[in-house]
């Protein structure tokens, strides 16, 4: 930041910055520090005594199979959502980027899912996919597929993936469209003159030029799946059946709600914080550098 300071005075700027600093300290730093501190403590069953145990909570956590299961679920969930929502977003954006009529109307419809809360999106899809009630669930059953997300873990995962992809399409579509529109027309025309057909132009010129947007969106989508899908999971599956849709964040939420193992829950939170910080740092590195290949 170059030195732009123009007005003199010390008291006024301190007063101006005070509200945000105060809120950050009370609701951000203080709880984050508490989580960190608590993750090194063990409390007895009655909450009467606490003991400082260094990394024991972390060691215990890394020895529970459920934790690895939650990691696996999170990875599968993130990968599926990122792949499908990015793929569909890019496809729609590439189509919308051609000079065709009615683009405003298409865009208006395509941005609607962004405005729908994850939990509400979940309700919309439960209504279609609830066995015995939902229109699509009944069609699947007529087709001989024993669709039942309440009992079948794979089906439950498919359900939450569909909701999350639907919820994220708008975002990816808008960013890909902005990215596509930023590519100079002359580059594409030059390739066309050299005889490259549309598909070839897309994969050899447009797609590589889009890589900064794609990188950025991959990170954003992973962050979305990690943290914003809690409403989807809580409404649609409750993490079940038998943990099939229990992501890391949802596990923190469920374990914390039960509240018997504060230290373990805090250790889980701290691990998540480290993951987000790493993802954000990674994102800044790449977005700042504007990678091109």
């Amino acid at each position, binding site marked *: 930041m170059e030195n*732009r*300071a*123009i*007005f*003199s*005075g010390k008291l006024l*700027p*301190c007063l*101006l910055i005070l*509200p945000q*600093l105060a809120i*950050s300290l*009370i*609701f*951000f*730093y*203080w*709880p*984050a520090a508490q*989580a960190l501190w608590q993750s090194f403590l063990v409390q007895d069953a009655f909450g009467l005594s606490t003991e400082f145990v260094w990394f024991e909570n972390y060691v215990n956590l890394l020895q529970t199979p459920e934790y690895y299961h939650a990691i696996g679920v999170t990875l599968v969930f993130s990968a599926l959502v990122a792949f499908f929502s990015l793929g*569909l977003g890019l*496809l*729609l954006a590439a*189509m*919308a980027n051609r*000079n065709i009529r009615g683009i405003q109307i*298409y865009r208006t*419809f*395509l*941005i*609607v899912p*962004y*405005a*729908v*809360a*994850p*939990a*509400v999106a979940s*309700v*919309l*899809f*439960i*209504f*279609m996919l609830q066995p015995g*009630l*939902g*229109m699509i669930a009944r069609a699947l059953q007529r087709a001989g597929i024993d669709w039942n997300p309440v009992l079948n873990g794979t089906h439950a995962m498919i359900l939450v993936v569909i909701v999350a992809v639907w919820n994220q399409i708008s975002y990816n579509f808008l960013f890909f469209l902005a990215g596509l529109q930023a590519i100079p027309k002359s580059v*594409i*025309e030059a390739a066309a003159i050299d005889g490259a057909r549309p598909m070839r132009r897309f994969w050899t010129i447009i797609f590589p030029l889009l890589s900064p947007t794609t990188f950025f969106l991959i990170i954003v989508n992973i962050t979305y799946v990690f943290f914003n899908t*809690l*409403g989807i999971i809580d*409404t649609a599956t409750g993490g079940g059946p038998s943990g099939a849709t229990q992501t890391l*964040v949802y596990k*923190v*939420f469920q374990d914390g709600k039960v509240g018997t193992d*504060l230290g373990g*829950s*805090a250790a889980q939170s701290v691990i998540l914080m480290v993951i*987000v910080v790493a993802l*954000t740092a990674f994102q800044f590195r790449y977005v700042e550098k504007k990678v091109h290949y």
Partner: protein
Amino acid sequence: MVEHRRFGNWLPHLILLTGVVIVAFPVYLAVIASTHDNAVIANGQMPLYPGTHGLETYWNTIVAGAGKTTRQPVGGMMLNSLIMALGIAAGKIAISIISAYAIVFFAFPFRMTAFWTIFITLMLPVEVRIFPTYKITSDLHMLDSYAGLILPLIASATATLLFRQFFMTIPKELVEASKIDGAGPIRFFFDTLLPLSVTNIAALFVILFIYGWNQYLWPLLITTRDDMQTIVIGIKKIIDVHDALTEWQVAMATAVLAMLPPVVVVVLMQRLFVKGLIETEK
């Protein structure tokens, strides 16, 4: 765009239309379901055109509640959601614009420390520090209050960064000119900076309104009283009632009402929304 296409543009139209249908169908179905009788929905024979029970259902959902269950009327929940969304949007913009102003236009001790202290909050969403934040909010006696719903969610740096970015593009000469005209820092803020920031404020407002309205985890944890619920968490309780008893027409009407304000905001203020989205994230 570049060459003549033999088949015209039917392929892009087809793909975009399919996309629109996939995106719009769940929403359409919810609207339709909210106008049918529960019996028609429950036996799985709901038609794809509107029914005749719409007014009755919306009246029962928003105002009356239901006789058979302990369900709350949704009207109050919508009011809570509205207060929360507006509070988050206005609160975050207010504290961010003044702190960005201080960081960009003043030299004061620990300016960079203050900036980094705020900047780091960008990294951790409320979901990862949820229980400690809950405990602090509870210690401050803010459970079941609007302050408790709003304040912890405005502790984030996105808006501050956006305003800082924007303020740094304002030419120094403009500030010099106002100083020559005798304007102090407060005058300059209200007479020059604020009018210049109107578009940014509006774009941010759209994004933050949606963010606030759609919150799930935080209101779920800190509201225990039914009259403090927001609509997004209220809807879960409606379908949570043992499955066979779920009043699906009410659930769908609630879903429609929960979607309506943010969807209207996004559609009507599309340009501001896109601007806000792209600028807050990049």
